[in-house]
């Protein structure tokens, strides 16, 4: 039996929230490790733990989702393990107090919202062919087929960039910061992560509703949140 190690979910400002629920790995209870001004949300895991199953990912997500509903939280990426509570206190909370303070200033009372837009049916290709009628040609050989496909692919990327701009401008307006992620699927028009102050969420709701109505024939929207601000805490710190 090896010494337990400590899985870290995230950091909260102050020590107020009472963490609860079951953690990753052995479902050990989630608890707080309080430092000076900040507290880490952790649970025990076996030191030789090697993961990666669905249950662990869900546990990580569940713990942070419960926190972000009420509190400002700096989420850790999945899989951060430290050797002890002391290590968490010294190397994370005290060792990076300055950076954490700056992060919380930026994140205070803000949450991440995610807006993804997907092309409906064949909207993307129809638009592309309308813009470039020369794509309506009939290839007569394999090289011509490949050349046509290459032209279509280029036009598709151009169209995607146009549509990103079209949606990005109104969606960004209520946000303090945005990240446009590369499309994760061919039919994805936009993969946008927004950092939004909690009081301005209603404004973003209204904007998404308006866009979904206005462009419903071209895009299907997937609007999700509030999320822990993963996309706005993408830092790698050495201890």
């Amino acid at each position, binding site marked *: 039996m090896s010494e337990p190690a400590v899985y*870290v979910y*995230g*950091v909260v400002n102050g020590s107020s929230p009472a963490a609860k629920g079951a953690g990753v790995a052995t479902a050990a209870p989630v608890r707080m490790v309080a430092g000076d001004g900040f507290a880490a949300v952790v649970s025990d895991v076996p030191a030789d733990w*090697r*993961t*990666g*199953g*669905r249950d662990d*990912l869900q546990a*990580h*997500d569940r713990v942070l*989702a419960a926190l972000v509903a009420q509190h400002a939280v700096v*989420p*850790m*990426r*999945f*899989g*951060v*393990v*430290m050797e002890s509570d002391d290590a968490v206190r010294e190397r*994370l909370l005290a060792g*990076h107090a300055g950076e954490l303070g700056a992060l919380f200033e930026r994140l205070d009372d803000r949450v991440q*919202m*995610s807006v993804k837009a*997907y092309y409906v*049916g*064949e909207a993307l*290709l129809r638009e*592309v*062919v309308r813009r470039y009628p020369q*794509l*309506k040609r009939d*290839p007569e050989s394999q090289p011509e*087929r*490949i050349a*046509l*496909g*290459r032209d*279509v*692919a280029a036009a*598709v990327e151009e169209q995607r960039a146009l549509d990103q701009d079209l949606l990005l401008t109104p969606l960004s307006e209520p946000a303090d910061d945005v990240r446009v992620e*590369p499309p*994760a699927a*061919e*039919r*994805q028009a936009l993969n946008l992560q927004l950092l939004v102050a909690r009081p301005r*969420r209603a404004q973003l709701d209204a904007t*998404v509703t308006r866009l979904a109505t206005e462009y419903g024939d071209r895009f*299907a929207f*997937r*609007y*999700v*949140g*509030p999320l*822990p601000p*993963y996309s706005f*805490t*993408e830092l790698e*710190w050495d*201890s």
Partner: protein
Amino acid sequence: MAVATSQNRYAGGPSPSGLADVLDLILDKGLVIDIYLRVSLVGIELLTVDARIVVASVDTYLRFADAVGRLNIDDDGKEGLPELLEGMTSGAAKSKTSGALDAAKEKIEGVLGGGDDDDDDDGKDDRPRRERARPRRAKRREEDDR
């Protein structure tokens, strides 16, 4: 299961997140301290790399060419590009033309949907994730460009 799909239509307000909505965020964003202390996640890391590749390959070009061809034929029809635009979310047909994105999705489902068989960790690979990801990405490109 609903990984990376888009069938949920927007319904008047934000939805609570499902694992599929946050998977890429959990695995690729957020704060990292002491990256060498991250648990070994071999299978999961590979899938995030694969899922991100929207491939520019001969296979993709041929799919696009065929898709536009079909679009021309039934220009006013309702039928369109099932393989190209819906195949990757339907999870139904494993058409030969559905390409690399379907392969990536299957991999995601394999890891997330699987029970114990998703752990292909050999227990000795503790290098940071980015070091491992690069060679595979490069290899994938070479294969696609052939």
